[in-house]
């Protein structure tokens, strides 16, 4: 049963289908913002199948085991996140501490990117890995503080099911002042977690040509691309769960798509920040805002 849940529903396969749809929404909304037509609905599927059929090249001087395992780690961890999030959302139940497990599992894709960059024997890839490390250092602190706001507002709930059921009983977290601040902080942190503009300096296509994944081709690249899409599908879901009580009905789906479109619009209307600007933004104003949110939540606002 657990194996079926992990591999099919609501685990890897279901997350894959959702992430293909989300990726198409991303490209279509970006196209509409730029007054273009945009790609057809099946475009992510074509991209994925094509990548799976291409040749895998391992650069000489790279470490083959780490090089090929990194994308698999990233994909497997996100499948587990999807299992936990969708299960808690469907049945409003979980196990104690699963929110912490999700926080740890969401760091695994970052680590696999760092592993990928460090094992590719390419100077641009190691540059991308080091920038990825700095970005992760910068956004984790405000993210965990904002998570603290949610946990305080829901009465110390450390399990996602309880966070959802408390919000369904006594109103969403976002209806309070500290909730709004924490939501804004989380949206910014998720933008960096999804490696999207304005925080995509670690892969800056025009500058370091994809960063950590520069040497990847064929199926391993496909797994990295799918991990990116899965992050893009799962992080808005996590935001909806934390601040709006999860997807319970049709309005929940609208909330989910609204959070997703906010992320896409931020991506399309902002220039890329340098790595020092990213660090200054997250450790300065964003962390202060998150700390203020925690104080307000402790005061009951």
């Amino acid at each position: 049963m657990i194996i079926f849940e992990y591999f099919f529903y609501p685990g890897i396969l279901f997350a894959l289908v959702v992430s293909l749809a989300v990726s198409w929404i991303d490209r279509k909304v970006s196209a509409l913002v730029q007054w273009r037509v945009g790609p057809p609905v099946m475009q992510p599927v074509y991209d994925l199948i094509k990548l799976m059929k291409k040749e895998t090249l391992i650069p000489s001087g790279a470490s083959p085991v780490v090089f090929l395992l990194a994308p698999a780690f990233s994909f497997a961890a996100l499948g587990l996140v999807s299992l936990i999030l969708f299960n808690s959302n469907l049945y409003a139940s979980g196990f104690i501490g699963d929110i912490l497990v999700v926080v740890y599992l969401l760091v695994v894709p970052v680590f696999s990117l760092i592993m990928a960059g460090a094992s590719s024997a390419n100077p641009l890839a190691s540059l991308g890995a080091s920038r990825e490390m700095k970005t992760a250092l910068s956004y984790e602190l405000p993210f965990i503080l904002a998570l603290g706001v949610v946990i305080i507002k829901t009465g110390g709930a450390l399990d996602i099911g309880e966070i959802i059921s408390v919000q369904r009983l006594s109103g969403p977290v976002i209806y309070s002042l500290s909730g709004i601040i924490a939501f804004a902080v989380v949206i910014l942190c998720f933008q960096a977690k999804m490696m999207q503009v304005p925080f995509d300096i670690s892969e800056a296509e025009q500058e370091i040509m994809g960063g950590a994944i520069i040497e990847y081709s064929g199926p391993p690249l496909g797994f990295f691309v799918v991990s990116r899409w899965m992050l893009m599908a799962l992080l808005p879901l996590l935001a909806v769960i934390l601040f709006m009580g999860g997807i319970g009905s049709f309005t929940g789906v609208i909330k989910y798509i609204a959070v997703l479109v906010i992320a896409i619009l931020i991506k399309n209307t902002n220039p890329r920040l340098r790595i020092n600007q990213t660090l200054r933004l997250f450790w300065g104003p964003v962390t202060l805002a998150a700390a203020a949110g925690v104080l307000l939540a402790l005061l009951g606002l």
Partner: protein
Amino acid sequence: MIKNALKKSIWVYHFGAASCNNCDIEILDTLTPKFDAERFGIKLVGSIRHADCMLVTGVINSKNLPRLREIYSQAPKPFYVIAIGTCSVALGIFKHSYNAAGPADRHIPVDVYVPGCPPKPEVMISGIVKLMEKIDATKKKGVREI
């Protein structure tokens, strides 16, 4: 759907040999909202390892010839090459230059030629349609003709 995947998602890598930038600007025009090459699944990528197709612009000279060969050898197969502009198709005004190393197809296999100085975006899109036909033909025969 599985068979047509490569045809529907051509990721393009841009190799500018000693180009005068006119072809490069026209390639960027092809990607702008007016022509919107993403409708056909075409995407510009920064690394040759991610690419399915390489655009060669400009005249190939003895300085950048080793780079062209190295980059072509790093590409994952199946891989296609489009020569864009008169320079890489047939050297153009550099025919008698002391430094020119010959047209692109003397050094790497070229699948589609898009002549013009510079070619218009419409011509490039028709070149890509020819490449799609060629991918179909390759699949039927099972071998790739150069």
